């Protein structure tokens, strides 16, 4: 048994033993759970993939004369942002598109530029065009503002993602006879390919399946800077079916995360364009898992072979909300690049970057070893499988 306080002392003394979530697998295989739990203090995880429910809020400072952008309109490089706050606070969502983007009118739409790209450019230190319109009040008389802005001049620039870091995800395939364009990528007709989106054995919530150490207030690697878990993410669904090792067999837990955008890096917040679907933000997240006891290290040493997920048809089953799986596969099978679905060999691609996830886990490990990153005790747990917390579908009530 170790406490976070003790681990932090070791971090400060430079004596901490930190390993990545793939290294801990070999370590446990070699030395056993008991020895590994004694030797290792922190396991670092990582994931890098498109996370649509991402965005950032800004306070741009007050112009002279003042303008109340609140309840007006505001665009960053032509991408509309949300203004339903006070005068100078604005939220820009990752999937927002310029008004003149053709969307899917020219099918499949290309979605070349959106909110996520603006966020990446801001983080890269580029100037961005801000255009705002307001109705004007006695205290905020100005009605129009057009200016270049730069992240360094903003008062606050905060990444606040309401759902990131999915604990497991579907494998998408297409049973229909035409290609389809989804958030899981292009899926060729008749089971032409399959795509998955998880870092598997490196992915944060898959390595702490019951959220014992990851909770509200957990300090994390976020977009190359430091962030915190703010809450459970939207659509958090801890009650799904799980294997004996406690690992969910379908999309389950999620995290809402927050952090100072000014410290982040454009390599870890990447605007992406999903053909025929829309814009999203590629987000890099790394979560440290303190090795409090043997259970923690045992869960953190789960291998790709032991993490299963469901093959889902995105031509009908997913869009029509028809439950059902075409089979179960594990991440080791997915990583061979081929799976069998309905007796057919299907080539597999990944949307989540495992090599980037590994870099994140390594980076977080080096921060911890250098003494730059102390761990936090969560201030509250996020709902686990015993909580009864469920993700419900919408029950429409026509009026």
């Amino acid at each position, binding site marked *: 048994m170790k406490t976070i306080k003790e681990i932090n002392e070791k971090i400060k003394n430079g004596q901490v033993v930190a390993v990545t979530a793939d290294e801990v697998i070999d370590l446990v295989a070699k030395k056993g759970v008991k020895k590994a739990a004694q030797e290792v203090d922190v396991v670092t995880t990582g994931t*890098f*993939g*498109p996370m649509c429910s991402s965005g950032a809020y800004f306070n741009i400072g007050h112009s002279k004369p003042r303008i109340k952008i609140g309840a007006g309109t505001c665009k960053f490089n032509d991408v509309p942002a949300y203004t339903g706050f006070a005068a100078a606070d604005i939220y820009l969502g990752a999937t927002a598109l310029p008004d003149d983007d053709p969307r899917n009118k020219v099918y*499949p739409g*290309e979605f*070349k530029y959106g909110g996520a790209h603006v966020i990446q450019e801001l983080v890269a230190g580029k100037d961005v065009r801000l255009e705002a319109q307001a109705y004007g009040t006695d205290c905020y008389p100005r009605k129009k503002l057009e200016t270049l802005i730069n992240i360094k001049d903003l008062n606050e620039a905060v990444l606040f993602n309401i759902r990131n870091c999915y604990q497991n995800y579907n494998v998408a395939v297409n049973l229909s006879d035409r290609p389809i364009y989804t958030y899981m*990528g*292009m899926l*060729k007709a008749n089971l*032409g*390919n*399959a*795509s998955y989106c998880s870092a598997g054995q490196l992915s944060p919530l898959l390595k702490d399946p019951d959220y014992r150490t990851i909770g509200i207030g957990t300090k994390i690697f976020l977009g190359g800077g430091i962030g915190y878990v703010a809450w459970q993410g939207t659509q958090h669904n801890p009650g799904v079916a799980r294997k004996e090792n406690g690992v969910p067999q379908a999309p389950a837990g999620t995290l809402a995360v927050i952090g100072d955008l000014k410290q982040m890096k454009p390599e870890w917040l*990447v*605007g*992406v*364009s*999903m*053909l025929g679907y829309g814009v*999203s933000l*590629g987000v890099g997240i790394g979560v440290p898992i303190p090795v409090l006891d043997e259970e923690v290290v045992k869960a953190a040493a789960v291998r790709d072979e032991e993490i299963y997920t469901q093959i889902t048809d995105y031509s009908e089953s997913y869009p029509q909300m028809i439950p059902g799986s075409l089979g179960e596969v594990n991440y080791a099978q997915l*990583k061979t*690049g081929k799976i069998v679905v309905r007796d057919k060999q299907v*080539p*597999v*691609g*990944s*949307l*989540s*970057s*495992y*090599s*980037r996830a*590994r870099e994140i886990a390594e980076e977080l490990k080096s921060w911890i070893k250098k003494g730059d990153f102390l761990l936090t005790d969560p201030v509250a747990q996020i709902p686990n499988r015993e909580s009864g917390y469920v993700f419900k579908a919408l029950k429409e009530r026509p009026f």
Partner: protein
Amino acid sequence: MVSRRIVLHFPTRLGDQPIVYKLAKDFNLQFNILKAFITPQEEGLMILELKGKSDDYNKGIEYLQGCGVQIQSLSQDVIRDESKCTHCGICVPICPTGALTVDAHTRKVSFHSNKCIACEACIKICPTRAMEVHF
């Protein structure tokens, strides 16, 4: 005189016939094989530079098509902007020739431009638009 770069797609059944050789013998065309390989789907692929009199060239193309060879013109090159690629791997099963592969150990995605036939299938599906066509 015409001189063009074209991609020939050979169905499996034509694998062992001296079709290209006939272009020189029967149609007086000069050819230069730039790339040739078999795709994972067992299709033969060849990128040719074909030169000759316009009349002969057209007859040669007709002959190839008559044999069941599909022809695609190659007027561009595909490159990858390394700074944009995040090594996700979503392009790997989309590429028909195996020009995009993922390393089993590092999980990094390599682009083998010698296998690329510039079919452009990867261009718009790459989420970061790292794959670029240059004319």
